[in-house]
Every structure is written in structure tokens, then in C-alpha cells.
């Protein structure tokens, strides 16, 4: 390593080749560590990095980029003197050079809190805010990467997100996410994850809502869903996932916002997306179901829409997908059932029971528990269902659970419910029954 450094410092004709060799060598973890410990090594690199010898400057940038891959925080800290220059060059114009600077910064940010602590007063957020107006896809993608790493820092909610919200970054991020399908999906993916991290901090949702995030992201989902059948670009699931999460979390926000999405096409979009990704990327199923849950939880709009658009069969089809999917499907069904008798009637007429009965036999107590909650709501609002339940032998399934600790109280309460004669006080509050259920 020392030899490589000396070769670079010597400044002979072969300097560029020496730098290239150094770059290759720096792909190795130990070499990275050894290099930064050599006296004058970083200073040498900085000297070339900040010189006006364009091609050597680029090669030095590549060396720094290699160093940034190290998972040893000592290496990242050795690169502290470089950060002011990395930021200075982000006001430049060479796409490849800026890309290198951005990814180097992003990597350093991940590894070291000391680096982040230095970058903030050095003005990284304003620099990124001007960069985001660049037309170059590669620059935007790199920028998204840096931001996404910054936003995941543990101190992000208190130190970083406020600065981001104060800048023009959020509106540009939203714009770039929403134009991702036409303009460039790489950058859209990065910024979608950035938005997700911001939303997760629970400190920014009012700001995002006022930027029109809800309608914009809804619109994007609709576009996404209509694109899929034809020609799904690779990596689309990486865009879909954070967008779904953002929407879910924004909807869960208790801001008492009047801003509501009341567009039933969203449901169709959701199910189209579900169908599309079911095979290849099953994790999308639970992301979609979370959103569906939040859509159906409070207002009846989406519950009605789900029923009137005849999407219930598609929903029920998802029951056996996975444990998480089962719980979520059942929760959504609870949201629907909770809306009252008319809804329960439709559920029952679907018919729901033939699918729910086998669910009772599953080994997972969480799934079964949610199923019991659903049955309770069903029987409460639509006693006919209780009768049919017994006819189909459901009470036997309930009896199985009388000895399961998490389930016994609810199972017994349900058994009591179904054993009551039809019509007689079906609607009178049965206190034991009600208290057993949430």
C-alpha cells in the first residue's frame, strides 16, 4: 500500500495509472484501512482531488469513492477532511463527477455520525436542495441515495428532517416520485423511500399533506396500476412499496384533516397491483393490505366501494397467502363488518363463512383470534350468519379453541352467542360477549 501511495505522490508520467492501481487496490477492505493510516495519504488524495487536472481529479474521486465503501468507521472519519470539497463540487456540472461525489457522501453518511455531524453545518441540505433541480437522472438518483441515508440516521427526526422540511426538497421529491414512470424510475425509487422515512418520523406529516402528498401519491398509484398490465419495468416493486407505505401512514395521521381520498379507482388499482406482484414479490401483498386496512378503518366510503365493485372475492382469495396476509384480510373484513348490518349481510351473502370456517382450524392464534373478532361482528349485526354458522358445523371448530389461552375467552363467548335462540335478544347487549371482543 505504501508503494502505491508513493507512486501517486511522485507525480511521474504514470500518475494516472498509479491512481488507477490505487483505486483497484482500495476495493479491498484491509487495504482501505491500511491506506488511511499512512501518513499524508488522505492529504495526497485531496490534493489531486481538488486540482484542475480533470482526469486525475476523476481518478482521485474514484479512490475516495472506494474508501467510502469501508464499514470501518475509522476509515469514514479519516475522510472527514474531504467533505467540504465533496459539497463544493456538487455545485458543479460534470455528471459523472457529481455522481461519484454523491455516492461517496452517501456511503460516508451511513458509516459515521461524526461525518453527519460535520456535513450539516457545512450546508449539505441547501446543496442538495439546489442539486435536486438538476435535469440529470444519474445525479438525481445519487442525490436520492444520499438523502435516503441521511433520513435514516438515528438523529434524523430532530436534526435532519426539520432542515429538509425547511427547504424546497420535499416538493421536488414529491414531483420526482410522481413523474417516475415517465422520467426516470431510479430517482423516483430513491425519493419514494426518502418520503417514506420522513413520514415514519411522525414529525412531518402536516407539511407533506399541505404539499398535496395524498392526492399526488394516489394519482401515482392509479398510473402505476394502469401501466402494469402492459410492460412492468424492472424494479417497479421498489417504487410501489414505499408509496403504499406513505399513503398508509399519511392516512393514519390523526390530524383531523379534511383531505380525504375518496376515489374508488384506488381500490381497483390496489387489487391490480396485488395481482401483479403476488407471484414474484409477495411482500407487496401485505403492503397493499395495510393500505386497504387504513382506507376501510374509519369512513365507510371504501367499505361500500369494495362491496359495490365486487372486490370481496379477490380479497377473500388472499386469505391463504401468508400469516400476515391472513391477519390483514381478516382485519379489513372486520372494518367492513363493523359498519353495520347492511355490510354484514353482504359479507354473509358472499358467502364468507365457507372461507372463514377453515381459517378457524389454522394453527396460528393471531389469525384465529382475528377470525373470532370478525365472527363476533358478523353474528352481532346479522344473526342469520350465526345460525348458518352452526348449520355448517362451525361450533365444533370453536370448541377446539376453548383450551387455547389467547382464544378461550372469545371462543366461549361466541359459542354462547350461537347457542342463543334466534331472534331472542340477538341485539340486546350481551355484556360478557362484548367485553371479550375488542
Amino acid at each position, binding site marked *: 500500500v505504501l508503494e502505491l501511495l508513493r507512486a501517486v505522490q511522485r507525480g511521474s508520467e504514470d500518475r494516472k495509472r498509479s491512481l488507477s492501481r490505487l483505486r483497484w487496490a482500495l476495493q479491498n477492505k484491509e487495504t482501505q484501512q491500511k491506506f488511511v493510516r499512512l501518513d499524508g495519504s488522505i492529504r495526497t488524495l485531496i490534493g489531486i482531488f481538488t486540482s*484542475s*487536472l480533470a482526469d486525475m481529479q476523476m481518478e482521485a474521486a474514484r479512490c475516495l469513492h472506494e474508501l467510502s465503501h469501508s464499514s470501518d468507521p475509522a476509515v469514514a472519519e479519516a475522510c472527514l477532511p474531504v467533505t467540504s470539497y465533496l459539497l463544493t463540487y456538487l*455545485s458543479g456540472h460534470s455528471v459523472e*463527477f457529481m455522481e461519484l461525489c454523491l455516492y461517496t457522501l452517501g456511503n460516508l453518511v451511513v458509516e459515521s455520525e461524526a461525518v453527519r455531524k460535520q456535513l450539516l453545518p457545512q450546508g449539505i441540505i*441547501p446543496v442538495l436542495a439546489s442539486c435536486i433541480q438538476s435535469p440529470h437522472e444519474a445525479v438525481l438518483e445519487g442525490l436520492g441515495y444520499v438523502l435516503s441515508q441521511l433520513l435514516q440516521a438515528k438523529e434524523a427526526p430532530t436534526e435532519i428532517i426539520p432542515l429538509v422540511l425547511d427547504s424546497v426538497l420535499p416538493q421536488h421529491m414529491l414531483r420526482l416520485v410522481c413523474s417516475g414512470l415517465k422520467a426516470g424510475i431510479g430517482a423516483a425509487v430513491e425519493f419514494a423511500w426518502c418520503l417514506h422515512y420522513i413520514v415514519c418520523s411522525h414529525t412531518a406529516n402536516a407539511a407533506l399533506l399541505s404539499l398535496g402528498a395524498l392526492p399526488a401519491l394516489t394519482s401515482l398509484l392509479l398510473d402505476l396500476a394502469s401501466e402494469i398490465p402492459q410492460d412492468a419495468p424492472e424494479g417497479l416493486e*421498489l417504487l410501489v412499496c*414505499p408509496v403504499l407505505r406513505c399513503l398508509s401512514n399519511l392516512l393514519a395521521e390523526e390530524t383531523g384533516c379534511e383531505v380525504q381520498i375518496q376515489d374508488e379507482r384506488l381500490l381497483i388499482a390496489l387489487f391490480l397491483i396485488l395481482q401483479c406482484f403476488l407471484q414474484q414479490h409477495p411482500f407487496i401483498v401485505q403492503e397493499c393490505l395495510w393500505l386497504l386496512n387504513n382506507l376501510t378503518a374509519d369512513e365507510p366510503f371504501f367499505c361500500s366501494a369494495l362491496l359495490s365493485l365486487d372486490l370481496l372475492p379477490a380479497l377473500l382469495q388472499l386469505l391463504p397467502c401468508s400469516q400476515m396476509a391472513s391477519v390483514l384480510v381478516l382485519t379489513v373484513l372486520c372494518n367492513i363488518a363493523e359498519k353495520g348490518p347492511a355490510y354484514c349481510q353482504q359479507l354473509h351473502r358472499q358467502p364468507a363463512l365457507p372461507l372463514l370456517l377453515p381459517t378457524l382450524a389454522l394453527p396460528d392464534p393471531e389469525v384465529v383470534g382475528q377470525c373470532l373478532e370478525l365472527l363476533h361482528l358478523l353474528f352481532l349485526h346479522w344473526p342469520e350468519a350465526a345460525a348458518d354458522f352452526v348449520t355448517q358445523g362451525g361450533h365444533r371448530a370453536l370448541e377446539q379453541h376453548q383450551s387455547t389461552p389467547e382464544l378461550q375467552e372469545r371462543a366461549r363467548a361466541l359459542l354462547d352467542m350461537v347457542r342463543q335462540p334466534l331472534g331472542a335478544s340477538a341485539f340486546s347487549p350481551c355484556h360478557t360477549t362484548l367485553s371479550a371482543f375488542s
Partner: protein
Amino acid sequence: DGDVHRHLYLQGVLTSLAEVAERPKVSEFSCHISGCCQVFDTVEDYEHHYNTLHRNVCSFCKRSFPSGHLLDIHILEWHDSLFQIMAGKQNMYKCLVEACAEKFKSSKDRKDHLVTVHLYPADFRFDRPKKVKSGPKHVSSPSKQGASMPMDVSVETLEQFQVDPMEIGPSENMEIPQPAASPGPSVPEKQLYKSRIPSTICFGQGATRGFKGPRKK
């Protein structure tokens, strides 16, 4: 699961970036800027060359800068004849951080601010104070300079990062890899990796030269 998927995707992106892309090569072409005979065989090399050397260039002294902001500050502080006068009355030295609106009454105050508030290195390369006086020992002619530009960059010179702006600072040594440039005209050679940068171009440092210095042949 979504997060795992995202993580794996990023790993893929980062490793592919490290492999320097094979850029499509075009037939050789040279830089159009008069006086610059650099030759390229990829568009990206040319773009970076242009941005480094020709984009933010001071029309007075031909120095190039990494950004428009630094160029503007340079022109104001080095070439605006009213600057020194106004600086006596109000704070004129702008902070180098673009987003920071602070101004200072002296270059030193500005540097202190950069170091304490913005955590910049004390030897930040793009913040070299202009030399106000030039005594005889600091003046030299282009030809003299050319002859004395050593090719080799010794380790010691490189380590002298914190240096007063002198005619021949270590940085200039690094910037000019060519053997001592003869001031006379020569046939421009096509060298892909060497850049025949005119000796007046450097990054915002160095003393007065060119038309401001007395000519000695």
C-alpha cells in the same frame, strides 16, 4: 420484507457503480476553447475537462473555479476596484458556503467563521487570501516560472498544504505535470492523459501574474 428487498437493491446499485462503466469511445476530438489543445475520446472526459477548466473561468485572470459562487466571490474580491474601498466601510467578505448569507469585514474573519461555524478545514483550498502587496521578490515572469516548475512532486511539498500564496505553491506543482513548459510556441501534441494547461490557470490561488506583473524577458 420490503426493507430487505430495498437493501439488496441498493447493494446491487452500489457495487455496479464501483465498476467504472465502459464508456462508449468516439473518435478523438479536441477541446474547442482556443489555447486548449486537450484531446478526448469519450464525451464524459470532455465534459469533466470542460467543467473543470473552462466553465467557471475568471475573464480577468483566467483562473478556473469549481462553482459559479466561488467565481463570483473571486471576481468581487480580486478584480473589483471598489471592493477594497467598500470593505473599509461595511462587511463585504461573503461566506463561501452558498446558503450562508453572512458577510465579514476581513478575509481572516471569514475564515474563522468557515472553520468554527461550518467546520471547514483551516486550509480550505478555495479560500486563499489575495496578496495585496507585491514586493520585488514575489514577482517573476512567466518564462521564469515555466523554467522553475519542477515535474516531481515530492512528498514534502504535498504536505505543505498550509502555505502562503506564493508564486509557486505546491498546488501549482501538482497541476502542471508537463516538463518545464517552454514559453515559446510549440506544436501541440496529442496526449490523451496529459493536459497542457496554460500556466496561468490554477484554482484561485497564487500571486499576481500575467498582465499585472512587470514583464521580464
